[in-house]
């Protein structure tokens, strides 16, 4: 049952050290403000889950919040590598980072299984790739009708899902539209959920292409205007592509990165 709350309180209640957390979003509606709050709260040993870890996961990893990353594509879209992710994987800085790696099709089906109350999902995927050898949550499965061999992936049920959406009403019904990614599945698969929104409104006007997360499957709703920036919220904010380009330089160097976190995250007005 959704509770309207301030972001620090909601995240303190929803995300604890050692939790598995999915801050989902496919380029659109990335929950930057929530990720920064997790860094400020000094969360440790998180298992970070996401199809497309980008700048906020680079920041969480570089800030030492993560023990493990479960993902399918980790990059700065259209720009290049995530240098903090690379530094963690290649050199163990600031700490070793475990990797559980899938394809997008596999990751999204893991969320679907989690949202559906199933322990696994079936897909045509991975066959002939080396992912099968390095990832334990992939296994062959045979069709009981045709005998055909397919691939199973285990369900994802994060301890917490954190997403950003355009708006919610005062009951906590959440509405989002545009590229909707795997956000619904992540929230439905998770034990706890926090949704930051651009605004809280009296009435949710229907919007073409919008999906709704009913108040009774959401735990906390926090009004955080601009909470996706430098990502965007269709209808509210524009993507700051320059920020993503500039992040490449900021993140290449450990000291520059730490200074950036200090100035832009740790001292950000709460």
């Amino acid at each position, binding site marked *: 049952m959704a509770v309207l709350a301030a972001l620090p309180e909601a995240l303190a209640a929803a995300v604890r050290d050692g939790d598995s957390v999915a801050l989902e979003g*496919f380029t659109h509606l990335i929950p930057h403000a929530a990720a920064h709050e997790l860094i400020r709260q000094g969360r440790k040993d998180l298992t970070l889950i996401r199809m497309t870890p980008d700048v906020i996961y680079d920041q969480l990893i570089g800030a030492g919040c993560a023990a493990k990353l479960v993902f399918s*594509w980790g990059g700065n879209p259209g720009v290049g590598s995530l240098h903090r992710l*690379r530094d963690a994987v290649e050199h163990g800085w600031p700490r070793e980072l475990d990797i559980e790696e899938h394809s*997008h*099709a596999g990751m999204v089906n893991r969320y679907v299984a989690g949202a559906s109350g199933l322990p696994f999902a079936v*897909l045509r995927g991975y066959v002939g790739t*080396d992912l099968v050898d390095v990832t334990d949550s992939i296994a062959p499965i045979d069709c009981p009708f045709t005998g055909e061999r397919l691939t199973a992936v285990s369900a994802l049920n994060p301890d917490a899902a954190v997403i950003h959406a355009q708006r919610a009403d005062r009951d906590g019904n959440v509405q989002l539209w545009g*590229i909707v990614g795997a956000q619904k599945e992540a929230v439905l698969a998770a034990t706890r959920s926090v949704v930051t929104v651009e605004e809280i409104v009296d009435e949710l006007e229907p919007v073409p292409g919008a999906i709704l997360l009913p108040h009774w499957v959401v735990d906390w709703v926090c009004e955080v205007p601009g909470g996706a920036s430098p990502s965007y919220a269709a209808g509210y904010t524009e993507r700051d*592509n320059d920020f993503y380009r500039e992040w490449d330089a900021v993140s290449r160097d450990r000291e520059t990165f730490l200074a950036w976190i200090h100035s832009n995250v740790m001292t950000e007005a709460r």
Partner: protein
Amino acid sequence: MSDLGDVNGGPSAEDMMTVAASRALEGRRTCFVGIGLPSLAANLARATCAPGIVLIYESGTIGSKPERPPLSIGDGSLAETADTVVSSAEIFNYWLQPGRIDVGFLGAAQLDRYANLNTTVIGDYRRPKVRLPGAGGAPEIAASCKETIVVVRHTPRIFVDRLDFTTSVGHGDGPGARERLGLRGAGPVRVITDLGVLEPDPGTRELVLTSVHPGARPEDAVARTGWPLCVSPALAVTEPPSAAELDALRALTS
């Protein structure tokens, strides 16, 4: 590096690669587009040889018609101009997996003679020299699209004898490999580079240089390939970019 005349403001090798890739979409109805050069080529095709082609992005947009190629595959312009936007689950399960998409466009950090692709790591998986972004949608694009087209620069770092990691399967270990693995799409039908075009030999499935771009020499391609590259006895020279193609390309990138 071949150069078609950068100094004179003519088409660069990069332009030639993009134009050649765009031409590969002629007659195709639907294309699953990766980001970067494939997206530029796909949108160039929409502006030139394949005006009705339906572009599908893994962010869930179907029928996107962006005025400019987006920086990321989740750009707002892709959703705003799409015929419909679906969830990540739906785009992979209902649209990509069943093999209803004609052609998939892929890039890679490494490619071998059978057009198998690596976008995961350079070096050892557990402590890599370079950690690359990973699989994304590529393994299933490579498996499920009716055909795939790979767009990469022709360099020794990319054209390797042996992949450090197989992220996406092309023609596996040769004839019959895709059938044995149960992959239903035909796999890579063309690799387009800044030097020319490679196609799998119908018998061996090994990539053969079948065309060089104007100004490029087959020796350049052989020299930049990490295995003994076969050159087709019927080696063609790629038709240079037309004025219309270059105009359309400039309009997309200016």
